[in-house]
């Protein structure tokens, strides 16, 4: 019996290791390419490890374009959208979860339905709208909408708030707290795990966003990192090692964030709404 189980878990491990290699190989290939010298790039069969590690590739590629400016823009957009989503989505979710009011269920249905609207449909009028506000070629079109909440985050937070015992609210109300104080003093501290989750989700989607910057920004000084990287692709005087070096650097913040937040991501996905 015991040996049979050993064989079974052994094969399982082999399958998992093989699949992991499949998932990680492109990634590994990116990192080693970034560290190669130009003459080792174009070899077949490919060399997995560079014979001399070219760490200066990173600096060279980064400085070949104003990537410092792009980084600054990405940081501003990501920080302000994440802050906006957290502030607005928690307030809205609290409103939907804790009050009975006319039209609540209908409005919540509408909120959920908006998740199905393809972005392509609202893209052109939004462009015209932002153009009218004079926001094209600024970071505002990327930041401002985030301050009005996102349906998916609101949904997750509402589910969570509904699991907080109502007795807590009632006790606070007895002590003279108003609705905002109940939100701020009681619910907000309890919501932290979900706030971290939506913070991470929003960081990733904002940091990785390409279409928004592509449509709303024209001027290179306003570009975000993804836009800078995509533009990098089309230039003939840069080598693969440079492209891979910048790709690696741009992927680093999401990876680091994921490393520290993975507990929240995994638990968050499994505990909220998908039961």
């Amino acid at each position, binding site marked *: 019996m015991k040996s049979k189980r050993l064989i079974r878990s052994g094969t399982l491990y082999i399958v998992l290791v093989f699949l992991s290699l499949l998932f990680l190989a492109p990634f590994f290939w990116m990192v080693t390419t970034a560290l190669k010298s130009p003459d080792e790039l174009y070899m077949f069969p490919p060399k997995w490890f560079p014979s001399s590690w070219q760490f200066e590739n990173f600096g060279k590629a980064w400085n070949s374009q104003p990537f410092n400016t792009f980084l600054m823009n990405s940081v501003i957009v990501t920080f302000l959208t994440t802050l906006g989503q957290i502030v607005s989505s928690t307030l809205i979710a609290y409103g939907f979860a804790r009050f009975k009011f006319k039209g609540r269920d209908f409005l919540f249905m509408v909120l959920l339905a908006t998740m199905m609207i393809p972005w392509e*449909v609202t893209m052109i009028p939004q462009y015209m709208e932002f153009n009218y506000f004079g926001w094209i070629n600024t970071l505002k079109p990327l930041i401002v909408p985030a301050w009005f909440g996102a349906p998916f985050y609101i949904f997750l937070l509402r589910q969570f708030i509904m699991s907080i015992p109502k007795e807590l609210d009632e006790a606070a109300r007895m002590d003279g707290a108003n609705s905002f104080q109940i939100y701020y003093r009681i619910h907000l501290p309890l919501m932290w795990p979900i706030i971290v989750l939506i913070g991470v989700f929003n960081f990733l989607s904002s940091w990785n966003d390409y279409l928004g910057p592509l449509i709303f920004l024209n001027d290179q000084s306003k570009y975000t990192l993804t836009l800078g990287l995509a533009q990098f692709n089309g230039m003939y005087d840069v080598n693969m090692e440079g492209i891979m070096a910048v790709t690696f650097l741009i992927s680093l913040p999401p990876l680091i964030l994921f490393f520290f937040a993975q507990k929240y991501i995994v638990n968050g996905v499994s505990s909220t709404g998908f039961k």
Partner: protein
Amino acid sequence: MKHDLIVSTENVSVQTKRKINWGRLAPYIFISPWIIGFLLFTLGPLLFSLFISFFDWPIVGEKTFVGFSNYATMFTDDPLFWHSLWVTVKFAMLFVPLNIIISLFLAILLNKKLKASSLFRTFFYVPSVISGVALAMIWGWVYNGEYGILNYFLSLAGIEGPDWLNNQRWALLAMVIASLWGQGTMMLIFLAGLKNIPKDLYEAAEIDGAGKVYCFFKITLPLLTPTLLFNLITTIISAFQQLTLALVLTGGGPLGSTYFYAMYVYENAFKYFKMGYSSANAWIMFLIVLFLTMLVFKSSSVWVYYENEVKNSK
């Protein structure tokens, strides 16, 4: 009634303090950011998009009302419409089932009792973290016909690989594979669904002498159908919105083989500046997505199994 209203507004300064009931208004104040955002960035643009779709509306210059002619042109006189739609449908027919099967398979493997399963879970999820342009860059290099690692692996098996992204026959498949790579979230959702299946069901079946395959089809799959429904709908929607990868990697080529419908909408708007026509394109896309979602929802009453249904029928 009208008279009452006038009277009460006259006394407004005296009455407001008593009349405004903050307790009643509070919920609306809390949700007001969403209401404003919805009107400003969703409903307004949605209706305006429908409005523009009946016009010939270049970004500069006069707009002219053309009725349904944008829609008529699309169906009768624009081969690119049918072409891009067909490319998207082909993509979806490959991507949707493969995505569901692969992420379910991975989730089942990770659901087994193993010490290192959280480590493997991390490995499978990592590509989803860096998606977008970075993903496109990496795959562009992997697919390189002469020096890429994909063809290297194929050569180990004695197969001479094509120049993936420059080959009309293989470029779309290349898009499917690259898209599958970044789909770890679906795997996590399946994993969550699997963890919610009560263990005693399997124990009971085992006592009855049921085999692994029987358990999968009679317990796992039926209890997982609500999760499956969610994943199916989100995958279909994402398949129809596929754009970034093609925009960065192929620009729709070679010979239009990766010219997705979303790219057609995008180019009509921001390359050819046909705002009216592009809005009509976008509305057709909306209707297709809506139709497919409804179809899945309607069919779900046949194949989705809800626990409470069984409890009620007992």
